[in-house]
């Protein structure tokens, strides 16, 4: 909101939207072109043309598969995941009026890991439930427990955060208990990798699930942008400005929960994105949510795609867990934001 002309300046808006889209496409192009197997950029574009529009360029089946089925789906999912987590962070920071709120504060990731571990190691759910399905159920269960706990404690913002911390600890303890007592060394290693996030197994069906979730979530959040602004001075202030506080809270908590649970169930836990990106975006465009939310979506997407590229090239012959990369980049970035945003005494 601040320091910007209030009247909509359409040419500037369209220009910025176009630039953002171009940056996103550029990041995806990079992600598709860079990798263990060296593939010329021209071939990469031909493979994309074949995959998207069936153009019939002569590209070897292996290269076609690597570019289209492996790298492109992976880049798109990284973008969706980064955008959705950043968006969820911005929403939770506004609703809970706490700059440290982020998607995992509600215990979602802890619940997801317990659910995944229960399926992977305990064989919970038999052949019906996949690891992703278990993670999704686990995160929803954690969210419900945290919501009940918070409601029982009066429902104030700080209580929600405390309930989230308590819920997370509980589920992390359950996960650790299952892993240390029952998992083989190989299973434990697999769980670790999953707990720190992993885009390795991503294929097109995952993209087809994540896309509608992220885009619908974004649309619902945008419809509530003005209501989120009204939370600046608290829930009572928002209510006195005509916001249906309870309804908005339920809708937006549900949206962030579904977005986060979906992403966690596909790629595991990826920290820092939901926390850092909203702050960076606020630094760029101010606190008004009509601008902040789309900017979060785009920056989150670009950040995650670039982080994924880094995770693949930082250590030769190895892929770092994506959560390690986001934390390595995110923690110093966060320190800089805190430092620059400090208030004059």
């Amino acid at each position: 909101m601040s320091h910007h002309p209030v009247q909509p300046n359409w040419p500037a808006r369209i220009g910025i939207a176009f630039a953002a889209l171009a940056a996103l496409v550029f990041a995806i192009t990079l992600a598709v072109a860079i990798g263990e197997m060296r593939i010329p950029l021209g071939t990469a574009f031909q493979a994309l043309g074949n995959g998207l529009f069936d153009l019939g360029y002569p590209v070897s089946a292996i290269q076609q598969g690597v570019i289209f089925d492996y790298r492109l789906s992976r880049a798109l999912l990284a973008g969706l995941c980064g955008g959705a987590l950043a968006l969820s962070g911005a929403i939770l920071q506004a609703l809970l009026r706490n700059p440290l709120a982020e998607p995992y504060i509600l215990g979602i990731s802890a619940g997801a890991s317990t659910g995944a571990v229960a399926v992977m190691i305990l064989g919970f759910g038999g052949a019906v439930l996949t690891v992703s399905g278990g993670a999704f159920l686990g995160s929803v269960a954690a969210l419900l427990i945290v919501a009940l706990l918070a409601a029982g404690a009066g429902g104030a913002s700080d209580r929600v955060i405390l309930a989230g911390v308590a819920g997370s600890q509980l589920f992390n303890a359950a996960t650790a208990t299952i892993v240390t007592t029952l998992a083989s060394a190989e299973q434990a290693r697999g769980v670790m990798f999953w707990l720190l996030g992993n885009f390795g197994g991503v294929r097109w069906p995952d993209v087809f699930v994540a896309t509608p979730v992220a885009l619908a979530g974004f649309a619902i959040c945008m419809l509530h942008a003005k209501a989120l602004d009204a939370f600046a001075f608290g829930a009572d202030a928002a209510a006195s400005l005509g916001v249906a506080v309870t309804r908005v809270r339920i809708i937006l908590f549900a949206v962030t929960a579904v977005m986060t649970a979906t992403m966690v169930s596909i790629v595991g836990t990826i920290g820092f994105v939901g926390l850092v990106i909203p702050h960076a975006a606020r630094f760029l465009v101010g606190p008004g949510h009509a601008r902040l939310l789309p900017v979060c979506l785009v920056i989150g997407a670009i950040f995650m795609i670039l982080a994924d590229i880094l995770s693949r090239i930082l250590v030769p012959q190895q892929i770092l867990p994506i959560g390690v990369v986001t934390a390595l980049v995110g923690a110093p970035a966060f320190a800089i934001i805190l430092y620059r945003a400090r208030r004059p005494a």
Partner: protein
Amino acid sequence: MTLSARDVSWGTSGRMIVGGVTLEAAPGKILGLIGPNGSGKSSLLRLLCRLRNVSSGVVELDGRDIGQVSRRELARRLAFVEQQATTEIQLCVCDVVRLGRTPHRGALASWSAADEQAVDAALTRVGMSERHDQLWHTLSGGERQRVHIARALAQTPSELILDEPTNHLDIQHQLSILTLVRRLGVTCIVALHDLNLAALFCDEIALLHEGRLVASGTPETVLTEETIQRVFGVAVRIGATASGRRHIEYLVDPDCYGEAAP
């Protein structure tokens, strides 16, 4: 155009906070709400603007039960200024005042010339036009309260509810905020701590004690030595100011000044 409460009660965790209060705000006048700490002033104000729902009784705006009015419609008529509301978000003065336009704008509506006009007019009325772009957290307490009032005015309300707007302000700002409120010409219900300020600035006063209304009417009828002794437990002598308003002098034990006192 009036806001009224009829036999309104509210409680929480089995404890009665507001019990059977009936009052009415006269159009264009200032109704002061006074009472000791914990007498239910803030709770009653929250019931009047439906931030809490009454347990029994009814709050009416122009004869309509506000429980039946949508929150958004209510916010276009009725504005509320909280005690000491602040934010950690980096907002400037105009951002805060723009929030007052929230109930007038649809989910996808862009900012209109009418919105901008309402914001400018509100800032002018509270004398903060020049501070348009100043950051919220650089404002003094009195300035913040002015900006909150401007935000409330940007809602273009016909009724304004203020919860102890002078709390924690120095005397100069207490007087200037209440002078400002008097000049708005809007129906106001204002909770006040200071009995002399209530006597100076209110047209009518309602006195709450343990959640119940114990007296209401003009300052002359409500602010009596017996009533203040009974409700606040302090001895006072009632005099008059030069302008003919009530003045409350607090009588303290003369011994506390020691031997040297006159």
